């Protein structure tokens, strides 16, 4: 696995900070946010592109694709996988991104509309296209197999990992790089999000801004980053003595067909059930749910109802946490980085907390692992992504015994 986000530029530091309840949410530094009402975001800290890429590579790579490459390199390195030339046609890439190359588009459109440019930079299209992350990964690692880019807003990387899992399961590939990326912190995007009135302002205390499930929660915080997994067919992994962090056993995808921004209960619940069914896992076997948990009034109460509906009495026994409380809502990357947190919970036997949990909400009355990480052996875990537009992705992972 590989990850880069506001809480760490690699998996170990990313997870250490989550377990330590350290938030990556701060006042925006990429540009001056003074004109905005919401001036905070979860930026990757101290990110210097030339630390990772030569200048020539950077010319053609928007920030969102850079993050995907960094996470993918970590994943490939830590997996120690060596792919023979004849295997390359069975090696593909699926990335998800909600927004694509926003940094590039924002800059070029500024030139066009504000500075009356009559020509835009020729690399604008190759940089901003949604599939740039997938294509850059394919080129970097020589992947010749089925490769896609998925755009389902906040569920993009959940769907990407699920679809990649199915490509292997149904025999179309043996190895997949799968995950997602987004770098949406631009003035234009923040203005657009501000207008939806779902962003937490932070009240001068950015690290405490995102308070999922807490009665005083007041919205989500935009973040950036990427998470990428090496998914491998089981026998292929065993034959080479691979270090196996977990098995992806279930993927549920469903649609609410309800509202363009508001979630339903039934749609997400169906996705959870599909994931459980595919994995042939009973609800009672689930130890931990990494929630979508955006920190909005609506998501958190809806998601609580989803968990109760699917898990019944067991809903009160299992642990739920929202790591968005610390790494923010990274849009198309969020399913992937949250799955990293989930798999690392299995690996380390410790559940990252829901940070900033200050006031219990009678409508959200489950165990959200408030404020402090919890040591617990996690065998089976679920990661939820419930997107704007009612598109849901749920992944079930379990320790391989």
């Amino acid at each position, binding site marked *: 696995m590989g990850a880069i986000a506001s809480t760490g530029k690699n998996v170990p530091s990313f997870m250490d900070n989550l377990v330590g309840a350290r938030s990556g949410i701060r006042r925006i530094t990429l540009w001056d946010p003074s004109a905005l009402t919401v001036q905070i975001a979860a930026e990757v800290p101290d990110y210097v592109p030339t630390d990772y890429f030569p200048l020539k590579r950077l010319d053609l790579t928007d920030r969102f694709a850079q993050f995907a490459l960094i996470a993918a390199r970590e994943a490939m390195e830590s997996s120690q996988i060596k792919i023979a030339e004849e295997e390359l046609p069975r090696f593909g890439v699926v990335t998800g991104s909600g927004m694509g190359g926003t940094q590039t588009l924002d800059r070029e459109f500024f030139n066009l509309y504000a500075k009356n440019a009559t020509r835009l930079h020729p*690399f604008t299209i190759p940089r901003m296209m949604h599939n740039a992350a997938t294509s850059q990964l394919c080129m970097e690692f020589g992947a010749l197999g089925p490769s896609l880019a998925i755009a389902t807003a906040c569920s993009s990387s959940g769907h990407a990992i699920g679809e990649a899992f199915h490509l292997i399961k149904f025999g179309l590939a043996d190895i997949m790089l799968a995950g997602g990326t987004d770098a949406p912190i631009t003035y234009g995007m923040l203005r657009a999000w501000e207008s939806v009135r779902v962003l937490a302002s932070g009240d001068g205390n950015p690290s405490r801004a995102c308070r999922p499930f807490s009665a005083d929660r007041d919205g989500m915080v935009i973040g950036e980053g990427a998470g990428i997994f090496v998914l491998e067919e089981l026998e292929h992994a065993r034959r080479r003595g691979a270090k196996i962090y977990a098995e992806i056993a279930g993927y549920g995808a469903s649609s609410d067909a309800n509202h363009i921004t508001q979630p339903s209960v039934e749609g997400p619940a169906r996705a959870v059930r599909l994931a459980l069914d595919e994995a042939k896992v009973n609800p009672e076997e689930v130890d931990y749910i990494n929630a979508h948990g955006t920190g909005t009034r609506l998501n958190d109460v809806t998601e609580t109802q989803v968990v109760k509906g699917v898990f019944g009495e067991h809903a009160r026994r299992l642990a739920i946490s929202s790591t968005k409380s610390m790494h923010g809502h990274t849009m198309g990357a969020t399913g992937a980085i949250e799955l990293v947190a989930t798999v690392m919970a299995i690996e380390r036997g410790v559940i990252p907390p829901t940070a900033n949990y200050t006031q219990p909400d009678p409508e959200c009355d489950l165990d959200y692992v408030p404020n402090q990480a919890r040591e617990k052996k996690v065998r089976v875990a679920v990661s939820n992504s419930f997107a704007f537009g009612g598109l849901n992705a749920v992944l079930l992972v379990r320790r391989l015994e």
Partner: protein
Amino acid sequence: MDVANKVIEIITREQHFEPGKVTIDSTFAELGIDSLDGVNIMFALEEEFKIDIPDAVAQNMRSVRQVVGGLTRVIEGKDISDLVAMAKGQTPAAGN
């Protein structure tokens, strides 16, 4: 204004080359400049000289000498219809 020096400077900058690598005799093939790089170089030249280079001409540049030649004619307002016709007729450019 020395068009040749400016062209060499811009190609060097856009391709992140070492100084001295690009000469008036260099071809794009020798320099490893593909058609996407070529489009980028044309963009930088258009911005620098504040001119418009027609697509058909821009796409047919294969060497530094050709670029300097074509650019000089555009800057001096000279007739480039032969270049445009040649490009549209897909005739291989002279001087490769």
